[in-house]
């Protein structure tokens, strides 16, 4: 990897699923996973050069998926659901095509106590290195008819995607109808390696300016 001309570039993402705004719901937990193209692979993070204690620790694929704790709303005006659930994954790739997306799905109990889905959402991992904050609008599929809506409510089996990963792709979405539900705020710290050597320039010209985009990101919020 230290060769003059690398054959892959690395994308290291850490951060967290910070919080969510779901005005109507409480006691939610979230699940995340990554969707990426065929040229991408989560790489082994091996600490062979690390301290002796960590040397044995091999996290094979980073935290490629995760389920958070159940969070209740804060008691203040914000009514934020805070998870602070960490994300830490490293990808290697030969091709920016199929850039990783994080797919979030949020679940929580309905009035009868059944866990139902409260939102799906996806966003690309930011391209440029630095600190980025993203707020993803979440949505859920709608029932196909009012009767089904009622029964699904009644039986606690809301319509769900067969695979949450469909929200990261466009294919087949035309057959679904969704309703928006709330927002989830994510924080990413992105580090890339060898992107430029492979001819992909994503970030600011100098690494000093990394602060720039993160500031502008936060301004956007």
């Amino acid at each position, binding site marked *: 990897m230290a060769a003059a001309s690398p*054959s*892959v570039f690395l994308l290291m993402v850490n951060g967290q699923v910070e919080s969510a705004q779901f005005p109507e719901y409480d006691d939610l937990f979230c699940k995340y996973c990554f969707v990426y193209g*065929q040229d991408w692979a989560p790489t082994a993070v091996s600490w062979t050069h690390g301290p002796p204690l960590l040397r044995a620790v091999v996290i094979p694929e980073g935290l490629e998926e995760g389920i958070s704790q159940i969070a209740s709303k804060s008691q203040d005006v914000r009514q934020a659901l805070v998870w602070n659930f960490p994300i830490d994954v490293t990808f290697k790739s030969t091709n920016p095509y199929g850039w990783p997306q994080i797919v979030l799905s949020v679940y929580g109990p309905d009035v009868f106590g059944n866990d139902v889905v409260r939102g799906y959402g996806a966003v690309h991992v930011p391209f440029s290195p630095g600190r980025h904050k993203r707020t993803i609008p979440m949505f859920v599929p709608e029932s196909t008819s009012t*009767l089904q809506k009622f*029964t699904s409510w009644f039986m606690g089996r809301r319509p*769900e995607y067969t695979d949450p990963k469909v929200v990261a792709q466009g294919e*087949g979405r035309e057959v679904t109808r969704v309703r928006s539900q709330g927002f989830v705020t994510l924080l990413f710290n992105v580090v890339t390696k060898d992107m430029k050597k492979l001819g992909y320039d994503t970030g600011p010209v100098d690494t000093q300016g990394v602060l720039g985009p993160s500031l502008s990101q936060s301004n956007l919020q």
Partner: protein
Amino acid sequence: MNPKEEKVKIISEEFTGEDVDAEVGRQKKNSKVQRQQRKKKPPATPPEEMVSNKFQDGGQPEMVEEEPETNLLSLTARRGPRSLPPIPSASRTGFAEFSMRERMREKLQAARSKAESALLRDVPTPRPQRLRSPSERETETEFGTEPNKEVGGTQQEDDSQRHSRFKLRGSAHKIKSKPQPPPGFPSAEEAYNFFTFNFDPEPEELEGKTQVKDGGRAHQEDQEGEEEACAQERAKKTEEEELLNGKDAEDFLLGLDPTAHDFVSVRAAEYESAHIRLQKEKEILFVPSRLTVPTYKKLPENVQPRFLEDEGLYIGERPEVPRSNENIMENRLLIQEPGRKWFGDDGRILALPSPIKPFPSRPSLSTQEQSTKAELETLYKKAVKYVHSRQHMIGSGDPPGNFQLDIDISGLIFSHHPCFSREHVLASKLAQLYDQYLARQQRNKTKFLTDKLQALRKAVQTGLNPEKAHQSLDTTQKTINEYKSEIRHTRKLRDAEQEKDRTLLKTIIKVWKEMKSLREFQRFTNTPLKLVLRKEKVDQKVDEDAYEAEIQAEIHELLEEHTEEYTRKMEEYRTSHQQWKAWRKAQRAKKKKKKGTAEEHPEEEEEVVEEPFPEEELTKPVPPELTDPAVIEQQVRERVAHSRRKPGEPMLVPELSLAGNVTPNEQCPRAEVSRREDVRRRSVYLKVLFNSKEVSRTVSRPLAADFRVHFGQIFNLQIFNWPESLMLQVYETIGHSSTTLLAEVFLPIPETTLVTGRAPIEEVEFSSSQHVTLDHEGVGSGVPFSFEADGSNQLTLMTSGKVSHSVAWAIGENGIPLIPPLSQQNIGFRSALKRADAISSIGTSGLTDMKKLAKWAAESKLDPNDPNNGPLMQLISVATSGESYVPDFFRLEQLQQAFNFVSEEELNRSKRFRLLCLRSQEVPEFRNYKQIPAYDREIMEKVFQDYEKRLRDRNVIETKDHLDTHRATVAKYLQQVRESVVNRFLTAKHHFLLTDLVVEEEVPNISILGLSLFKLAEQKRPLRPRRKGRKKVTAQNLSDGDIKLLVNIIRAYDIPVRKPVVSKFQQPSRSSRTFSEKQTASPSAHSPVHSTDYPLGQELVARYVSLIPFLPDTVSFAGICDLWSTSDQFLDLLAGDEEEHAVLLCNYFLSLGKKAWLVMGSAIPEGPTAYVLTLEKNYYLIWNPCSGHCYGQFDTFCPLKSVGCLIGPDNIWFNIQHHDSPLRINFDVAKPKLWKSFFSRSLPYPGLSSVQPEELIYQRTDKAAAAELQDRIEKILKEKIMDWRPRHLTRWNRHCTSTLRHFLPLLERSQGEDIEDDHRAELLKQLGDYRFSGFPLHMPYSEVKPLIEAVYSTGVHNIDVPNVEFALAVYIHPYPKNVLSVWIYVASLVRNR
């Protein structure tokens, strides 16, 4: 001091403070220091002094400063009761300036707004009563509390009121006096006294109050009189202003510091007389005049105004500005900007065209307020069908009405056709000439011109007649001259026309003669044409007279003309002659002079110098000759004789009729007959093309013998767009062969005024460039032919003809013509046209004719600068100049080139790009290719090898793996089927249904609802949960590594176990058992029916069927579908799964005459499968079609575990018994309680025909090929075994091999049964000294790979005992239809020591 007094004091202090503040506001003159002084100083002044001052009634003021104060006080005391005209604002003249007042007023405004209402109320109330005692004052202050300022405010008001009264009463003397600093601050008591003292007479007070107002007004008037400059401001004064005055007075009383006198000097008020002021104003101010500025001022000197509009240039409409405003502006600009850049050439202010549209661009809102909501309401409008926008489209705002164009095609006449005979050629010529003649006759131009000529002559004669009153000789002369020239012109025209008439007549006669001679020559007639010349007798005498008179008149005129000419020429001659004479004279004089002066000069020299010059200058003019009348007469007569009918000659009127007879076929020569037949074979039809698209076509009509085709069809074209072109295509069909396009005819698009019913039938000519040579009498087309016998005088005629048609706009039901409307308000080129009114001037058809349009534009002198005409001008310039380059190709993405990173070749060369492309196309080899390298160089060439090989081999049949052409072909075919199915599914994979994406509960019905309601009461976590069926994952959604197979073995029977005893290994006892996978069940477990009555035929058939290779559909089309092929397909493919085997077997049984059914059920290990059931004499047999084994119904080892339905040749029965295990059910399908039939009485068997072929055809399998295959397989297997033992020597025991080879056919014959003992004995005999262990394998043959795998799975090759020897024999038994039974015997031998 008592408390009350104290309070009063405080209040009064506040007063002063407030006053001081107010004063600060007003009096800018006083600095802060001064104010401070004042604030501090008042208490410093001794009160006694103040008091004494105050109480000096009428005393002379010691100090100037104190004077007003004392005066005031004394006056108030004295004059209080009197009603003096007070001048309250006297002080104003003293120190209040205009701006000051302004500021004061502003300040007051704020205070007033707060207290105004109270004040107004308070004013009329008698104030003094309240002010009489400090206690009252106190209460008032208490009431007027709230914030401090507020208090101050009210107090101020009060004070001002009060003081105004003081001042009103006592300031009579104060006029024009400077404000004086008030005396020292009084103590509370003094103040109290002071106030009470002032106001003791109560009723007077009231009176004084009224006087205040009067006085105020009076005073105002005074002021007006005095101060004219301030007149306007005064006029605006209100009560508040009085208040102001009061304030001023108050200032005098209290606000001013006694020490202020140090800074103040008294002087007379400055007054500026109005006159001076006006003058000053004149200097500063500029009032622009409203008068019109003369143009010369606005233009540079000596420049005439230029009016562009008059020059024909477009000037936009100027925005409307009142003339006076414009004048003012102009005046202003002239003063300000000496440069005249603001003015245009015409002397007016430059202005852009008015941007204001004449109509509102926003929909008008109704004025009613309550309807605003209604305005905001949305309206439902039905979606309007999209109309293609095209250049000639009707504006999009139009209702896309259906417009209709009616095209009436009545017929077609060929003026030349390849099948024309010579006579036809002449006949058509004659007909044309006759038509021409008729047309000329109808117009009768000759007659018209003759009449005109006569009229002109008459006019000339009358004009020349002097009897008429001479108005003016000049004019008559002029008109006569004009007439004469007209006569000349007309005569020429008439002569030409006459000549034409005559030649036409002559030609007609000539052609007719030719035709007659041709008819005679060929001895038959082809056309019914007949020309009759009718002679009209004329009166010889009259005719001759007229003729002569005409000639005479003409001669006369010509003579006159010539005379005129002569005189004119004479005139010319004379003048030129005279000139010449004069010149000659001058010349001579010159010569003389020269001779006189320079005689010494040689003559030659002189001539060289002079002569050439004058000689060329002028030649002697020749006098014109008078023409001879005789010559003229001669000319005229000649011409007339040539072009005119001779006098007395009868008038010839040709009449063409179709009265002639056509010679019937029998009397014609063969060539002619074949020509006529050819004509009969031909038929013609027309295609109607609208905007180059075929919209309809006529019926095909045969060509008549006279080459006319009658169609008489009307086509109604329903159109949306404005027609761009209308075209007819003429097609000719000869017999039943192909049709040829003869010609294309463009029809003009009708004027909008032309509607159906009024359109005349018009004829359009067409001609074709085709070359046709015919082998009969027909003259052909585009081929030279001749009428002469010797072939001279050749003639080449092209196929041509006329289509008679009419095109018109249809009329709708309500009588409205269905024409695309012209009243468009929309943008685009049509609307531009509309504004310019082009349509009305050139008609709608002009729109499609650019030249016409351009001509019209040129004629109507369109202003090219007018933006309204922009699109039109552009269109015309494009159309006429052809400047716009129209490429003859169409480029879909014209910007593509800019986006090409690299050239196409380079892109194709890139391996990475190729790999990415192939992956995105989901080519099987690359479908799940991970991590395509970042660089080309990292991509191995071999990545593509497989793919390229597959592409190459697509049509090449590879026999390597199969060793058998038939199977190779089949495999290839299967491969292709598989590929196409997979491809289809890959595309289908990208079509999603809702269920593919969203998991949702089914639409509930009552039972589900009830059930779920019931479920609510159920335990959440039951103790023994029932397994829920998982959702099926379709195979196409799977990718590598997604499949995990979980095998759960519950129980097992009769598992073949290799004996663990090593010693027994020497004996080839059980190990010799045939290890066919199908024989999982032990033979001993077979049912007793295995015995005698077991028919051999069935066994054989079952064996044959089982030998056909098994290929489950799930392998071919993984998880996609289940295919049932017919038996012949199955036999051809030699591959199929349970269904095909079962169907074939069942069919064999049926054809053997047995009762047989197909059993659909599930078995172990197949799962859902198909078996065959046969009815023997009194029991049923269940056949496994894939293995060929049969089981009795009550065989516990029967792999069939459940029966769902039975399928017979004519019905299907469903198992409705309680059990489904074949052990426990009754197979008697006749019992309706046990078996529910598909076809029953309610739905009888409709007698469906079978999809299976009637019979199957079997080919004999080539035995030699089988033997060859056998050898090859043996060789391959041996090689494989050697390969699998790379570290060891592999020896082959030939003896053993040959023994086995002999043994295998026996196995085949006995079908692997019942030979165990024989076999063992045989082996023992042959190979007594070897430890032998081996496996005979039996398989249907499909390809080599499974054989290799089977051999490998025996594990024989794994022996690593030294000295081990191997034996391998292969036997292939061919069955018909290329079904091969393969036996392999593989064994290892270890020599016993």
